[in-house]
């Protein structure tokens, strides 16, 4: 099997990324579900980088010529969805901050006698 320099570089980076995922899980920073998701992503990426020809079989099964094309299409779709989920999460955090600010404002309001 001929290994290209780019494959080595990519695999080194992906191993590093996978190690960070494992570390964050051990530190309790990410949940088991999140750990599983990112572990599968990075492990699959290592597989695709090391064995691109194997992915061609999968690509042809879904009607695409090359495995790398399938990897790119799938990555784009997943990334767009992740960005959307991040936007929704940010909006939720903004809403929570507003709730806090409102509660502080209402609790600190002078006790007015409303006639």
């Amino acid at each position, binding site marked *: 099997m001929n290994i290209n320099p780019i494959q080595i570089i990519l695999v080194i980076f992906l191993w590093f990324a996978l190690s960070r995922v494992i570390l964050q899980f051990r530190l309790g920073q990410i949940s088991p579900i999140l750990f599983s998701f990112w572990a599968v992503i990075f492990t699959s990426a290592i597989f695709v980088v090391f064995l691109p020809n194997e992915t061609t079989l999968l690509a042809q099964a879904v009607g695409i010529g090359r495995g790398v094309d399938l990897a790119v299409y799938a990555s784009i779709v997943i990334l767009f969805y992740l960005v959307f989920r991040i936007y929704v999460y940010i909006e939720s955090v903004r*809403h929570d*901050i*507003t709730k806090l600010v*409102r509660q502080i*404002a*209402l609790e600190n*309001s002078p006790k007015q006698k409303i006639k």
Partner: protein
Amino acid sequence: MKTLIIVPAFNEGKSLAGVVTDLRSHGFKDIVVINDGSTDKTKEIAKKQHVILLHHLINRGLGAALGTGFEFAKRNNFDFIVTFDSDGQHKAKEIKSLLAPLFANTADVVIGKRILKTGQIPHSRKIMNFLANVATYAFFGIWTSDSQSGLRAFNKKAIASINIKADRMEVSSEFFREIQKNKLNLVEVPIEAVYTKYSMASSSQESLASVKMPIRLLLGQFRR
């Protein structure tokens, strides 16, 4: 019957005193100013006006300020709410015509529809307002000629049922979602709007909000 005037204010130190004076001169005593994290003298000026002052520690936006005002009204058992801009765009004398349908029990929500004279506002602002009306109709099925008007009145039924989630200027359109969801009776009343250089600059975000609004409203649907 208690009526609360909600005046959201962000850096409106120049106009706030005049707005409060105008409201008081027309007999409105229960005025709550929500100082939305202003960095000018809005808070100090509001204190001098002896209004009910609610202070947001950081700026959260128009929707957040109105939400705080609504929550205050609910906690203090007000019968009617009027939202009133703090940039001097509205005239207090218009409030009477807004409240009339509520007192007559012919409406739950009244929106002041701004009647503008030719040349009073730029064409670009008119276009943006029209687009905002179209977006409001597309999202909520309610056609209004002024979805972004800040002069609104609500009765107790509306106050109890409306749940404001939007933080920023998309709240203007979100009211229509709540009206539709809670099957509230909506009436529009023509009002005169005052467009000065100051109020135009102060409300310049309105045009941009018309573009951002559909996106924020869509994201809000997915929020927990």
